[in-house]
């Protein structure tokens, strides 16, 4: 097939390349979407799916990427999302963009009000909203506040909002990630219903059973490149295994430092851990999870978005997340109660967050103040900080972990991602814990710095610490962990020793649905 615009395709993206400082996020990506189809895009976290959709919708304006977009046979150069919406491309992000205290109807027409000379026509607003709600199968009054309905229904409001804009191409980013099975089924039904009415959809998902049931075409993206595109109705059946192979089959161009773990006695054991969502308290985000980690051991937690890995870690770490938490924590064989973060730190736990900017660092404080932030008492006497001692400690870690900065008096916010991560690690290492939980320790970090982080993790294990690594990158877990737990939808679905671990095997556990686990 040649690349000239054909009326059969509603969208063609040619040779899209997108660079961020130090990172090649997309490299020569080609995507063609047929009119009236549901086109699934799948790939690991960080493969570049969301970046591609942001290029398409104008979040990254024309000129900040290379390559061409052809929409409905016309070249498109979007400068803002308004430009793309004007042509009927609407993106529904994973984090819903609704205003919680406004009504459903107000949200549907937000920025697009049914108004004349600045005065809103409420009757038109509510009656049109009611029609749209009927179309998406949502039986709520249009004047209900968005905060009063569940996430599943909010997702439907987003779709109603898209429909109000005469959508031609609907992009859904992980639409069912936060939904329960019933809501997911309804949503998927709605998407295929829209297809019958001629609305094309692009659906980003890693739930392979969903893709199998609804997609007409599936494109696999890996490491910022389009790997392959399957016709789901073709002669050759496309199985989950086939898609998984596409998703993970990367060449291992990352190198991991050699490491032989010396594993000792058990340090931390978590049993029957159940956590509910902090707001939607009926929804269990972690269910009956049991894991353990031993001295000198590096244990991985694998799972896709929404699998409950971070929620598990944070709820154990002094109940920093969730509601109705139940289960037991044993530290070196003794059951412990970790009611606050302070308790957790006192019992030798450390949790380095996946979200450095919001939960990890004080960006407007110096590197020095961040490094001493957890174990400040160690550089203080009677509550008075010995600033010289503090500076010495910070300098020690700057050299030891090779934090690239002129001085430790620089604000943490001025550092690159890799160096910020080293500051986070420094502050926890200085607290001298027995168990370190590292949540996505290499997210947003370039390859060179990743290697340094792996070396640090190995060294911590050699010093006799127990390390738990949460990561979305399977090669990373396979490269550094002694043992890996796979989580899916809040449950531990598998435990694999290093020798037996393959990406395919883990991905199978990670995509296990609830009914599958019970069989």
């Amino acid at each position, binding site marked *: 097939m040649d690349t000239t615009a054909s009326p059969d395709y509603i969208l063609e993206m040619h040779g899209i390349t997108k660079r961020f400082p130090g990172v090649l996020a997309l490299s020569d990506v080609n995507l063609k979407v047929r009119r009236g189809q549901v086109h699934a895009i799948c790939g690991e976290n960080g493969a570049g799916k969301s970046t591609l959709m942001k290029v398409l919708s104008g979040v990254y304006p024309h000129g900040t990427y290379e390559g061409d977009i052809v929409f409905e046979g016309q070249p498109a150069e979007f400068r803002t999302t308004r430009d793309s919406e004007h042509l009927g491309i609407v993106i529904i992000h994973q984090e819903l963009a609704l205003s919680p205290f406004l009504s459903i109807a107000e949200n549907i027409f937000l920025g697009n009000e049914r108004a004349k000379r600045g005065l809103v026509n409420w009757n038109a607003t509510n009656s049109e909203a009611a029609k749209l709600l009927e179309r998406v199968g949502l039986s709520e009054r249009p004047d209900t506040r968005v905060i009063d309905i569940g996430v599943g229904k909010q997702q439907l409001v987003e779709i109603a909002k898209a429909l109000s804009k005469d959508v031609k191409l609907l992009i859904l980013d992980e639409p069912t990630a936060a939904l329960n099975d019933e809501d997911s089924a309804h949503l998927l039904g709605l998407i295929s219903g829209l297809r019958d009415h001629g609305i094309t959809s692009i659906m980003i998902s890693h739930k392979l059973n969903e893709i199998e049931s609804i997609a007409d075409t599936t494109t696999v993206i890996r490491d910022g490149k389009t790997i392959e595109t399957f016709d789901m109705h073709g002669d050759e059946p496309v199985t989950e295994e086939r898609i998984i192979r596409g998703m993970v089959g990367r060449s291992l161009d990352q190198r991991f430092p050699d490491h032989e773990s010396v594993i000792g006695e058990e340090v931390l054991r978590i049993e029957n851990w159940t956590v509910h969502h902090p707001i939607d308290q009926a929804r269990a985000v972690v269910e009956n999870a049991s894991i353990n980690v031993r001295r000198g051991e590096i244990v991985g937690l694998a799972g896709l978005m929404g699998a409950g890995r971070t929620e598990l870690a944070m709820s154990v770490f002094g109940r920093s997340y969730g509601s109705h938490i139940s289960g037991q924590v044993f530290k070196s064989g003794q059951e412990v109660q970790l009611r606050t973060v302070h308790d957790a730190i006192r019992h030798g736990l450390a949790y380095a967050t996946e979200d450095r900017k919001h*939960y990890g660092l*004080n960006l407007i*404080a110096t590197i020095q103040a961040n490094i001493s932030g957890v174990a*400040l008492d160690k550089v203080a006497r009677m509550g008075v900080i010995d600033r010289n001692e503090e*500076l010495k400690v910070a300098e020690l870690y700057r*050299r030891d972990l090779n934090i690239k900065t002129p*001085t430790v008096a620089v604000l943490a916010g001025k550092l690159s991602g890799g160096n910020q991560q080293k500051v986070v690690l420094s502050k926890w290492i200085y607290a001298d814990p027995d168990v370190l939980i590292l949540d996505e320790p290499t997210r947003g970090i370039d390859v060179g710095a990743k290697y340094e982080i792996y070396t640090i993790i190995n060294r911590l294990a050699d010093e006799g610490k127990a390390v738990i690594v949460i990561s979305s990158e399977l090669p990373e877990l396979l490269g550094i962990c002694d043992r890996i737990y796979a989580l899916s939808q809040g449950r531990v679905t598998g435990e694999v020793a290093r020798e037996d671990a393959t990406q395919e095997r883990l991905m199978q556990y990670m995509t296990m649905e609830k009914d599958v686990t019970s069989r």
Partner: protein
Amino acid sequence: MSTDIKLDPALPPADNERSAMGRRLSGLGGNAREYGIFGALVLIVLLFQILTDGKLLKPNNVVALFQQNAYVMILAIGMVMVIVAGHIDLSVGSVVAFVGGVVAVSMRDWGLNWVVAVLIGLALGALVGAWQGYWVAYVGVPAFIVTLAGMLIFRGLALVVVSETIAGLPNSFIKIATGSVPNWLGFIGKMDVVTLVIGGLAIAAFAIAQFRARASMRKHALQVEPTGAFVAKIVGVGVAIGFLSVILSMSAGGMPIVLIICGVLIVAYSFLMGRTVFGRHIYAIGGNRPAAALSGVNTKRVDFLIFVNIGLLSGAAAIVTTARTGAALAAAGNGFELDAIAACFIGGAAVTGGIGRISGAIVGALIMGVLNMGLSILSVDPSWQQAIKGLVLLFAVAFDLINKRRAGTS
């Protein structure tokens, strides 16, 4: 330069030179704001010194400046801590009136000794702070709401306590705000020796503290600032304190007692904010509250304590204000909260929390004070004075923001 370079063995030489430069620049940048606000104070003083034909810096006017503005300095100390933690306190003016009333009643009606009355005032202030801190820290009501309610509650209680002006307070009490340190040591010409000695001690204490810090850094093999800058800093501060002491020594009474009180509070609280674990926790909470909580900081306890503290300082301000007036008035302390908040923001505190220093807030308070005094000497209409102060606040913060934006984009 040579001391700069050996710090960084990990980096190649080219990077090293750049980092040495960067270190210089960033070092300057960190303090530029502080120097800037200090420079602004000096400029405003000079401006009014010229405009008033030298009346501004007449000894008795300088004493009056401190006596009139002591309450702003005391409140600004507490307020900057509240603001750094990301909160606000709108109630301090009303608390001043309420506590002032109780202190006056305790002396006039209950016949208590003035020392006991002062202690009662401080304790009552702390109690009020604990009340507000409880709602902010443990119930989670936003400080804006809690202290807005407090503003009404304590103004109301002040009206109850001080139904009519309570005058006739003991002389020793009034001296807290209006008195001077006795001239025990006689005079040199027109200059009070006690004032000069206090000034000299302050200079010596500053110099010794600086030398000791430098020696300690040397001992830890840490980099110290260049000798020239170090000497210039001590000489500069020494000359400033000396100049002020000489002026004060020629005033009618000599060293005002409130200035000693303020000085002690400034030093103590600067130490608390800059050197203690508690102070660091305040900055950590203001800079990133969830990150501080995940680092094991007891954010609720810190929030509670900073409100207890500003209550305590409001009690101190109430004592100073009541003593200066010589009477308790129901309308006392009106607008004090705005003076204190303005002082903090002029002094470089960030509205979003995490940034702000005691010294900045004090300079901010002095800028407002000098403006007040200068404009009064020039007999500018009080209504216009208020408008001018408003503009100064707006321009100071806007200037700061523009500066920061420029630094961010460069």
